[in-house]
């Protein structure tokens, strides 16, 4: 039920690293931290979920909201470092086909 969020802004890219669990208690925090960036135009948002041990559908809701917002502002959402369990969640819901979801973490800048 804990989450820690670290953000790094590099030009029009936002790199976010989340650690912990994304559930009904922590999802609002994630939304509050990331949503303001999604509202700017043309932002590339890369979220590293390597250290996210659990995510439920409320967490999914946050990413769906971010995805839609970024898309409407010509931005981009990329999720990386998903565990098998998380990957499965995105596959079952069909989101893996519409969102950029990969299990490799992008190389450092």
């Amino acid at each position, binding site marked *: 039920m804990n989450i820690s969020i670290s953000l790094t802004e590099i030009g029009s890219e936002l790199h976010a690293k989340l650690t912990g669990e994304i559930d009904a208690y922590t999802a609002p925090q994630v*939304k509050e931290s990331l949503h303001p960036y999604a509202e700017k135009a043309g932002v590339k948002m890369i979220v590293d979920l390597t250290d996210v041990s659990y995510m*439920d*559908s*409320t967490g*999914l*809701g*946050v990413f*769906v*909201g971010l995805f*839609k*917002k970024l898309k409407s502002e010509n931005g981009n959402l990329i999720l990386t470092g998903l565990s098998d*369990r998380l990957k499965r969640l995105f596959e*079952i*819901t*069909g*989101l893996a*086909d*519409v969102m950029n979801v990969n299990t490799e973490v992008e190389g450092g800048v």
Partner: protein
Amino acid sequence: MDFRDTIESKYRDIMNNYLNDQNEQSLYQAQKLSRKLIEHHIVPEEIISLHKTIMLENELTRKSFSDSFDILLEVMIGYGLSYREHQSLRTEQLALKSEIEVAASMQQTLLGTTVPKIDGLDIGAISVPARQMNGDYHHFIKDENQCLGIAIADVIGKGIPAALSMSMIKYAMDSLPENRHNPSAILESLNRVVEQNVDPSMFITMCYGVYNPWNHKFLYASAGHEPGFFYSSENQTFQDLDGKGLLLGIDKKTKYKEYELNVLQGDMIILLSDGVTECRTKEGFIERENLIGYIEKNIHLHPQEIVANIYKDLERLQEFELRDDFTLIILKRTE
């Protein structure tokens, strides 16, 4: 100087000014200071302690003692207002709580579904909310031809908007008779409605199927819903009810694929919400294979008993604390 030092020095100034010359200006400044203290979460005890310290630094006369309390009173009035606001908020909160209780019971009444009787089919269903409003929804519909339509959905999003989405599903099913045999059409039409009408971070997973007791076929489509199981009594094996499809409410152009199963005597169709597979125990998540084990343990019972027993077992495993709404439906062909 940090904020606390500023406070101390400000309070001291106001006190000393007032002790020298009991004027309105100092009282007004004390009032202003009070608002700042509350904004910065300074607790009343700190002020009283500071007051005591300042008084002990001064000459204590009956008059100075009494005058000093005029200042303290001004400061405390602010805290008093805060306290009354807190009480009023608490009353509001209690009122909201009972409103939710009313909404939850309305939800049960308006959206309730009864398990129909279908010849040659035993049906078991259980749905338990984790909190007051159930985010899972399921609905049975039987038509004049004895065909059974069954929907199971999980609304992501809470409270009243989520419950209203469920009404959309129910009325879509009840009012589209020609589509009831066409799971793809039902999901496509619901998808368009949800996409238009629902807030961007709300979405719905859903599985809709129709069982035809004449040809014993089960036709279904899924919108991102947790896959169920199909039990073959001939092979005594379980397989996942595959079904790919995007969640409802993401893209209004989404198309849904239909899948067909032949249901032989003794076969079972098991539909569930992710509250079942997300059960967390001391050892970690219950895996789908473990769930199959629980079903197998109860396999000879009537589906209603199977679902009740599984719920009891999983409830106990989670130490009676449901993490998520729990819905489990089992159809068994008996003849």
